[in-house]
């Protein structure tokens, strides 16, 4: 299987084996050479990855087994940090909140962005304009988003509650300053902000759905819903898989939105794992313990992604 490549390289004149030597040697050197050329191409990217991501991640695993306040040397404590996690109520709350956020944010974002994509895939007048509009939240600064949404959510003077007040009597949600409503408020904003990006991915996916299939289905008498369910959705599966993986990882490591909107409050109502890591590490200088929490978050992300990959593979087969 590999010979044609080598042959091509030869005819292209990338490498001329010296005629006096036996045949095997130049082949291997050619292989090495080809590999080296490949490596050179990914080297710049890999260097950045190695220095800025891989090394810190490996260090993270080591740090999680130590007690380190950033100064001096780290003290080896084995699994002590992980044992402490078991009994740490704040960690349990942060983990619960992270899963709460993910459990709602993932499906809602997928449904909303897919619906938007289907809508804006029609040949409507001004579709390009509305696509831009839907994408806008994604490129808006998160701090500006948080400030504006916080005002909209203001329980006393905010437009949202004034609007709701026209239809619903009695107690209105306290949104970001209520223990029960802060998380839904953050999820609404998170979905609103992210939907444009995933809509774009779905739109790209929709372009790959063959129109013949739709026509065939229509001739067979399939309604809009049946066509969506039996033609569009199966054809979108690669996109759907990619979007699901991305949105899952994004939900599990949500940080900046919550930090600027509620700062984890009120109380610990919206404290998520990433923020807890930040608190322990950069506010309280417990880098060992913070690393242990980060390892847990890392493992959750890996686990969920692997499960998604396996599921996708099984469907593929």
């Amino acid at each position, binding site marked *: 299987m590999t010979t044609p490549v080598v042959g091509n390289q030869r005819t292209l004149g990338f490498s001329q084996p010296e005629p006096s030597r036996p045949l095997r040697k130049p082949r291997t050197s050619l292989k090495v050479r080809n590999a080296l050329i490949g490596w050179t191409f990914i080297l710049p990217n890999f260097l950045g990855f190695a220095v800025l991501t891989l090394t810190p991640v490996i260090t993270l695993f080591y740090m999680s087994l130590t007690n380190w306040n950033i100064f001096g040397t780290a003290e080896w404590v084995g699994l002590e940090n992980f044992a402490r996690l078991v009994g740490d109520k*704040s960690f349990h709350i942060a983990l619960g909140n992270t899963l709460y956020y993910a459990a709602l944010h993932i499906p809602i974002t997928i449904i909303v962005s897919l619906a938007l994509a289907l809508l804006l895939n029609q040949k409507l007048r001004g579709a390009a304009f509305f696509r831009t509009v839907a994408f806008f939240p994604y490129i808006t600064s998160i701090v500006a988003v948080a400030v504006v949404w916080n005002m909209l959510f203001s329980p006393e003077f905010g437009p949202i509650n004034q609007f709701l007040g026209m239809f619903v009597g009695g107690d209105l949600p*306290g949104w*970001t300053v209520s223990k029960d409503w802060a998380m839904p408020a953050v999820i609404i904003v998170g979905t609103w902000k992210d939907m444009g990006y995933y809509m774009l991915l779905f739109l790209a996916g929709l372009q790959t759905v063959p129109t013949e299939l739709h026509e065939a289905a229509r001739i067979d008498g399939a309604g809009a819903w049946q066509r969506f369910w039996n033609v569009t959705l199966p054809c979108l599966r690669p996109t759907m898989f990619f979007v699901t993986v991305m949105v899952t990882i994004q939900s599990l490591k949500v940080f900046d939105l919550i930090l600027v909107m509620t700062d984890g409050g*009120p109380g610990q109502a919206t404290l998520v794992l990433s923020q807890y890591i930040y608190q322990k590490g950069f506010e*309280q200088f417990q880098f060992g313990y913070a690393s242990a929490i980060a390892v847990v978050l890392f493992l959750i992300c890996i686990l969920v992604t692997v499960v998604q990959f396996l599921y996708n593979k099984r469907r593929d087969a």
Partner: protein
Amino acid sequence: MNRKIMSAFGVAAAASLALTGCGGESEPEAPEGPVTISLAGWDFASTPEFQTLADAYEEANPDVTVELKEYPAGDDYDTALTADLSAGAAPDVFIVKNLKNYVTFQEGGTLLDISDVAAELDPETGGLEPMAVDGATYAVPYRQDSWLLYYNKELFEKAGVDLPDGSWTWDDYAAAAEELTEGVDEKSVTGTYLHSWQSTVQGFALAQTEGAALDGGDFSFLAPYYERELALQDAGAQPSYATVTTNELTYQAQFGTQKAAMMPMGSWYIGTLVAEQESGAADTFEWGIAPIPQLDESTTGTENTPVTFGDPTTMGINAGIDESKVETAKDFLSFAAGPEGAAALAGIGITPALIDDTVADAIFSLEGVPQDELSRFSYTTHETLPENPVGQNTAAIQTILGEMHSAVMSESTPVDEAITEAEERVANEVG
């Protein structure tokens, strides 16, 4: 020919390297002559205090150059400085900006013992005493803001409420706030304004309550302070915590544009308000400063010393400093925390840790600063206790109390329940 020149250069370069190398190793003590020390600070454009201190010191000591190194402002200062300290790349002298991280720096071995500098300072220097860790001092306060009560004289007159006279307890303050709200009777104006920070409630409770301690595991001392603030926001005498946080209200705008007749705030706001009235960012109105209200009458009145809170901003010496520079660095610290540094700071409207008559004269000679006697009394006379007492667990406890603050003030959790929860969390998670 070319080659000859080049080899000549090479020999010369090698020789000079060898010579300087030798010289560096064998030099025994610091020579008399110019010394340069570096000082870490943040955001020089809007924080002129570092340059002011450096200039004043250089003027008094022409042999010394104080080189400033700029770090990011806000919480990023600690993060960036910490990274430099652990890498051994931090400046000779640095500001310990947040008192709650002092112990981390000290235990990390990044601070030089400067007990000798501390011993020579005026014992009146605000915040000096609490800096001692096991009998040794590692950083000295050069700046200390204290919390005061700002009030708008015109709104008081409009509402027909007596001006503060220094005799107020918190209950008097609460009563006045409600009277003011009613008396002014304008929808957008409240009797007082309480900013969303946890210190606006907890700082006073900790400083004024007998026997209250952050690491004592008992937070019941917070309860009366919270009950009072909740009652005030329920009565509409101050914007609710929900309104303050969701609408991102700023204390400068609330008091400066006359939306609140009173406001507890740190002494740094004097300079801000004067500047904003001059620039037009704040309305022009007559205002004054009163002592912060007290828990009970034992500390009220101008014959007593009111108790308030405020963290000193302190300066320490990097433990990794070149030995030849230690004496100069110590001298700089004595200068910055002493009367000369204080005078220099007061000249730009900043409250130094050492408040003497020169400092008070300098502050009250600034145009726009109220001239009444109570204002001067409030500024110069107070016992200021730290918001973040020096202790190993202060940072962790403050995180828990901060979360409690948002839960209580947003009325998500009743006061007693929140206090019990915080006590349990401290027992469970800290230490």
